[in-house]
């Protein structure tokens, strides 16, 4: 009996963690792409909102019938917002932190405004699970683990493999990393620092927008205000946790996604905290991703303090620093 309850809880956790993490995964990959060339975009939360709301508009108002097309429209909208961000911080050298925060808050506000009349309207144009033959039923452990819609596979397998290959196995990726580590060095050998930074921060914004689109086209699947619910911030934490390595982002996204799912499950089931006398566990669980981030940052920092250099997990050296050729 107890075993059955635990198994049931576990299944529902996994079942929701994997798609919940796909949103984080897409946004984290988007953020990582920009950060690898030295652009820190704190606006992930806003970009998820923009990506989501434009996909909703595409389906509900423009009558788009393909989830792929709806997602593409969400991505284009997020990319447009990303372009404004990139022009501000790369071309005009504005503070990445300030513009990023403005994008986060502005994006949430804009998407809530655009979504007002569409609150709670269910979306029918959905990504479908890949379930070959339809043999297995929904409550099966295997199906909880394996059978999801194609976006999940793209996010967890396709993207990290492609990004890893580009970054570490191509000339192009080598130059990309140089732009993020030492733009002066890249500039001296003829790599366009400005061009690459704008390009990859826009592409990154589009990926984050895809994360938002995925939320409304499969996960929720409806528009509700403040749709990202902190997943944008969690994505930024995942990038740090992963040490800017695409493969590790998968582990990070799953870990963080599970914490989000645990939170949702706890709320749904009314779990209380056995200590501190609290009847609601969810505030504690909402805090968890950030505590884990703190630890993830402190581990490499502590290792450096102990005299070990952990270069491979350090942030790109030029992250969030505007580049100008004239400076000494």
């Amino acid at each position, binding site marked *: 009996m107890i075993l059955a309850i635990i198994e049931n809880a576990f299944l529902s956790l996994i079942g929701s963690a994997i798609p919940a993490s796909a949103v984080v995964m897409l946004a984290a990959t988007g953020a990582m792409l920009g950060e690898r060339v030295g652009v820190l975009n704190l606006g992930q939360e806003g970009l998820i909102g923009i990506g989501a709301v434009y996909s909703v508009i595409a389906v509900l108002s423009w009558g788009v019938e393909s989830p792929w097309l709806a997602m593409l429209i969400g991505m284009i909208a997020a990319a447009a917002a990303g372009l404004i961000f990139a022009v501000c911080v790369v071309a005009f050298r504005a503070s990445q932190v300030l513009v990023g925060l403005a994008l986060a808050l502005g994006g949430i506000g804009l998407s809530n405004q655009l979504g007002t009349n569409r609150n709670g309207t269910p979306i029918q144009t959905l990504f479908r699970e890949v379930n070959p033959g339809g043999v297995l039923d929904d409550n099966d452990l295997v199906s909880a683990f394996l059978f999801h819609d194609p976006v999940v596979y793209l996010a967890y397998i396709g993207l990290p493999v492609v990004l890893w290959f580009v970054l570490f*196995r*191509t*000339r*192009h990726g*080598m*130059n990309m*990393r*140089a732009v993020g*580590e*030492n733009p*002066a*060095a*890249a*500039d*001296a*050998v*003829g*790599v366009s620092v400005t061009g690459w930074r704008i390009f990859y921060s826009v592409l990154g914004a589009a990926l984050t927008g895809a994360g938002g689109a995925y939320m409304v086209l499969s996960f929720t699947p409806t528009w509700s205000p403040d749709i990202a619910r902190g997943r944008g911030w969690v994505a930024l934490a995942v990038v740090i946790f992963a040490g800017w390595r695409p493969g590790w982002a998968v582990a990070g996204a799953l870990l963080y996604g599970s914490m989000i799912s645990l939170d949702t499950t706890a709320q749904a089931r009314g779990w209380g905290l056995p200590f501190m006398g609290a009847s609601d566990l969810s505030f504690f669980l909402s805090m968890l991703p950030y505590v884990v981030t703190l630890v993830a940052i402190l581990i490499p920092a502590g290792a450096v303090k102990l005299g070990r*250099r952990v*270069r*491979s997990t*350090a942030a790109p*050296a030029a992250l969030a620093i505007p580049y100008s*050729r004239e*400076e*000494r």
Partner: protein
Amino acid sequence: MSWSEVHALVGENGAGKTTLCNILAGIYRADAGRVIVDGAERDFRSPAHAIDAGIGMVHQHFRLVEPMTVAENIHLGWPETPGVVSQRALNERAERFMGEMGLHVDPTARIWQLSVGEQQRVEILRVLARGARVLILDEPTAVLTAQEAEELFAVVRELAAGGLSVIFITHKLREVLAVSDRLTVLRHGVREITRPTEGATAGEIARLMTGEERVLHVEHRTVTGDPALEVRGVSALNDRGITALHDLDLTVRSGEIVGIAGVSGNGQTELAEVISALRGLESGSITVDGAEVASLSVRAVTDLGVGHIPEDRIGMGMVASAPVKDNAVLHSYWTPQFSRGLALNRQSVIDFAKRLVAEARVQTRSVFATAGQLSGGNQQRLVARREALVADRLLVAAHPTRGLDVNAAQEVRSTILDKRDSGCAVLLISDDLDEVLLMSDRIAVIYEGRIMGVFDAADADRERIGLLMGGHSITGAVA
């Protein structure tokens, strides 16, 4: 210039050496004039154009990506790098190339693991890899140790023998004579002379560089009287926790310059820091006019009249991102001259900074420009003058002329001599023995944190000092 030649480009800081080479390397564009390579006129709009024409430049500050390997750095931004690469393929390519060039660095090492000399070699390899036939080296020895510099000279000679042309920018006369076939002297952006190096003398080049013969004449003196600075039995640790100063004794009297001669890294940095109260003592005592320094804060030591021209002028001497005016009062802003309670008197700070800039001949757009925008020489002039004003009783000058051209160095030295003549005690730390011998009334030789001997300027013998600097103890030194 012709092929297979090493051409030295000499001139003072700001004479236009680097600007000229930046035009050749496609970083700046010329307002007028032509660049002709192999008989064809070229117009470089970007570094890539210059590279196509076979001109490559190694900058004074390296343009390497620290966390990447040597092989990756060599292949960075290079169109001939294969589109898909593996670490192994890059290493093999790099090794093959190093073999062809006869220059070797471990291709798998990461840049931050390399010495400065090796990093420079990577820069040179990277330029050569792109088929450069004209190699421009911008003050290549500024960051090198003496031995690394010798190795670089050998490499340069070898490359020239292989048919390359090398432009060697420097303001060190000794290097010009040692390495170049021909030389060009620039002054205020105008060419003074181009001539074969053979037969040229250091004095002649220096005159052309500065436009006037300025030889500093220093009259040495023997001072008796009360010591301004007394260091007694001092031991101290360095940043890594290893003992850097061993039971060290030293006395500096008012109105004299005591020079510390020694190979860098033998405790000089730590000595300057303990005297300025920047570093704690393990044992011993340091007194300035009888006041125990170790028990005082850095500011209280400053208030005693102790000025410190630090070794690392950008890191310790100034705040690079702050305006010149704020840097001018960095060591005195709390005095009644500049502040009342919590409020800073802006106008008196600006007036003071303007006066300081004019007196020290610091070249800057305005006192509101940031200190980081000043050239190295001008930064040093600013710091030296500021500290000289602070120092009433004692001036600690660590490598005060390092990286300066002849003229700027003379000015800083004059400032220090003026302090001495006005009765201030001066402790001069320098790894340039010529400078120590020129400036000091007494010379103390330091080796592994111990004073090996103290000489009066009159009986200072270069060879004996040299031996002591190398740790060879000899009898007859006056302790």
